[in-house]
């Protein structure tokens, strides 16, 4: 009963931290435990080792978003891939993937890169619908690419090693981008769009322009994979690096004028995520005490007999969650519930992470309420219904990718086993 009331309040627009907080307050008072327990659990925020990576990577992403890095990145990928038939869409997919990975998949991609890429797509005679759908669905394409914040957060909540998760996502992410690119190449061939000639000097020129930004992913990934530093340290290094490069080398941003504003904006986003995580830690500890995941599991086992049925139900459930809920709250609330259930069906927690994030990535652009659709609707000033239609072909392709990722575990696990041993 109380749960239904709270779902209703959530739908009415009560901030989620208050919804979860009130549920935790209610739960503990109903068993006559002092509410200070919630705070004790909240303080566990300070003992999660990788959590510091979240504010630092968010800060890095905001620095990059505010500088001219997006346009340098688009120039470079245009020089590299623009000669392909369907080249400009491929450019869009790749730059959106990188950019959304760095900016924490928060709608910034559609706003920052959409404005750059839309006119380029249209000038290449791609239809309005195609261009809009492409940019809408690309807004969350970097979800499976390190160092995306949802990926780190999943690792923290599910207590799964983050370096392994990063590795597990490599093949699925490449696969999704390849599928989308194949579709757009076909479109490009059919429409006989004009192509840019490949020119080595253009590649060199744009690479030189972005020379100081190219090492950033290499530093992060190389550092983490080689064990040279932890995810948190990689985050600290990339924040310092981005700050130095954008302020003192490119001079896109001014230290005293822009930095305080960027710090505040990025930390407001971080605060909104962490406060939900804090209250959810309180609620989770209650649920574990009350054995709710176990009861849910027992209930599900009555109806769901095989791993495959479970995966189908999981996919449908997560797609709905993804289009209703913000990704961070979805991870914080849902992962503790489904992790033990998935484990009992013999699903590897790392594979579960990839399935989980891929579902939510698609949910972002799924009608009727996927958030990307609303962001794109306001950014490009088109009706929401037009965006529903535009997104459909891309969603279909992503769904094919999702099915492969869900039912072929080796896509996610092969590289992990190769690098870390099984």
């Amino acid at each position, binding site marked *: 009963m109380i749960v239904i009331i709270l779902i209703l*309040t*959530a*739908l*009415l*627009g*009560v*901030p*989620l*931290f*208050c919804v979860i*907080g*009130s549920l935790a*307050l209610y739960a503990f008072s109903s068993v006559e435990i*002092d*509410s*200070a*327990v*919630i*705070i*004790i659990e909240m*303080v566990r*925020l*300070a*003992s999660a*080792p990788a*959590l*510091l990576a979240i*504010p*630092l990577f968010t*800060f890095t992403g905001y620095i990059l978003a505010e500088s001219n890095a997006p346009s340098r990145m688009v120039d470079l990928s245009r020089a590299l891939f623009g000669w392909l038939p369907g080249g400009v869409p491929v450019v869009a997919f790749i730059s959106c993937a990188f950019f959304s990975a760095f900016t924490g998949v928060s709608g910034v991609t559609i706003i920052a890169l959409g404005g750059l890429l839309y006119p380029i797509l249209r000038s290449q005679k791609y239809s309005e619908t195609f261009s809009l759908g492409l940019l809408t669905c690309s807004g969350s394409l970097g979800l499976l690419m390190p160092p995306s914040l949802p990926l780190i957060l999943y690792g923290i909540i599910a207590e799964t090693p983050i370096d392994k998760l990063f590795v597990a996502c490599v093949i699925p992410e490449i696969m999704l981008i390849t599928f989308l690119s194949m579709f757009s190449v076909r479109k490009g061939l059919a429409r006989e769009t004009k192509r840019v000639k490949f020119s080595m000097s253009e590649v060199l020129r744009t690479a030189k322009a972005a020379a100081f930004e190219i090492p950033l992913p290499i530093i992060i990934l190389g550092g983490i994979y080689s064990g040279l*530093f932890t995810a*948190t*340290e990689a985050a*600290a*290094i990339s*924040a*310092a690096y981005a700050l130095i490069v954008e302020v003192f080398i490119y001079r896109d941003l001014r230290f005293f004028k822009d930095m*305080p504003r960027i*710090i*505040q904006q990025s*930390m*407001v*986003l*971080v*605060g*909104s*995520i*962490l*406060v*939900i*995580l*804090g*209250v959810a830690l309180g609620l989770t500890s209650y649920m574990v005490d009350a054995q709710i995941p176990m009861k849910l599991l027992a209930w599900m086992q009555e109806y769901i007999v095989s791993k495959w049925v479970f995966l189908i139900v999981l996919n449908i459930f997560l797609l709905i969650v993804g289009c*209703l*809920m*913000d990704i*961070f*709250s979805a991870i914080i609330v849902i992962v503790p519930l489904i992790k033990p259930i998935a484990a009992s069906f013999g699903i590897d927690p790392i594979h579960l992470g990839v399935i989980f994030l891929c579902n939510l990535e698609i949910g972002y652009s799924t009608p009727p*309420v996927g958030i990307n659709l*609303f962001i794109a609707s306001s950014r490009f000033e088109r009706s929401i219904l037009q965006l529903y239609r535009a997104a459909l072909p891309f969603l279909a392709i992503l769904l094919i990718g999702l099915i492969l990722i869900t039912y072929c575990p080796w896509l996610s696990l092969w590289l992990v086993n190769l690098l870390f041993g099984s």
Partner: protein
Amino acid sequence: MKISDYIAFVEKALLTLVLVSILVVLLVQIVMRNIWNTGFFYADIIARQLILWICFLGASLCTYNRKHIKIDLVNRFCPRPASRWIGMGTDVFCAVVCILLAKAGYVFTLDEYQTGSMVTGNIPQWIFLAVIPVSFSVMAGRFLLHAVRELLTGEQP
């Protein structure tokens, strides 16, 4: 109204200071570990405790800017006058939740203060915890302020 703006100014300044300190501490640690093979014993622990400050100062500013994460399904498809009343109701609800959480935070912080528990060495735990009741109280005040503003002016966030 004015008070909320002043508090926001202090919160912004503190947030900037905290993030910069975390960044500096972590960088110094990396350099020291790799070059001299040592590090400050306390530094990591304090940097981690500071995440509480980031979390709650950020959340409080989030209330100031009305940027909290919410599902917001009904308001998107709801006529304006109705969504104004819904907005007022949700703000009052949030204020109550924040007051209760502030109380819980106060109880726990006071308890840690009285037992004198330390994070490490002679740095007491309550310094880092105090941000919890304070920011929940500020948030409660701000939610009430939003509700009153909506009641008086019909102004939508």
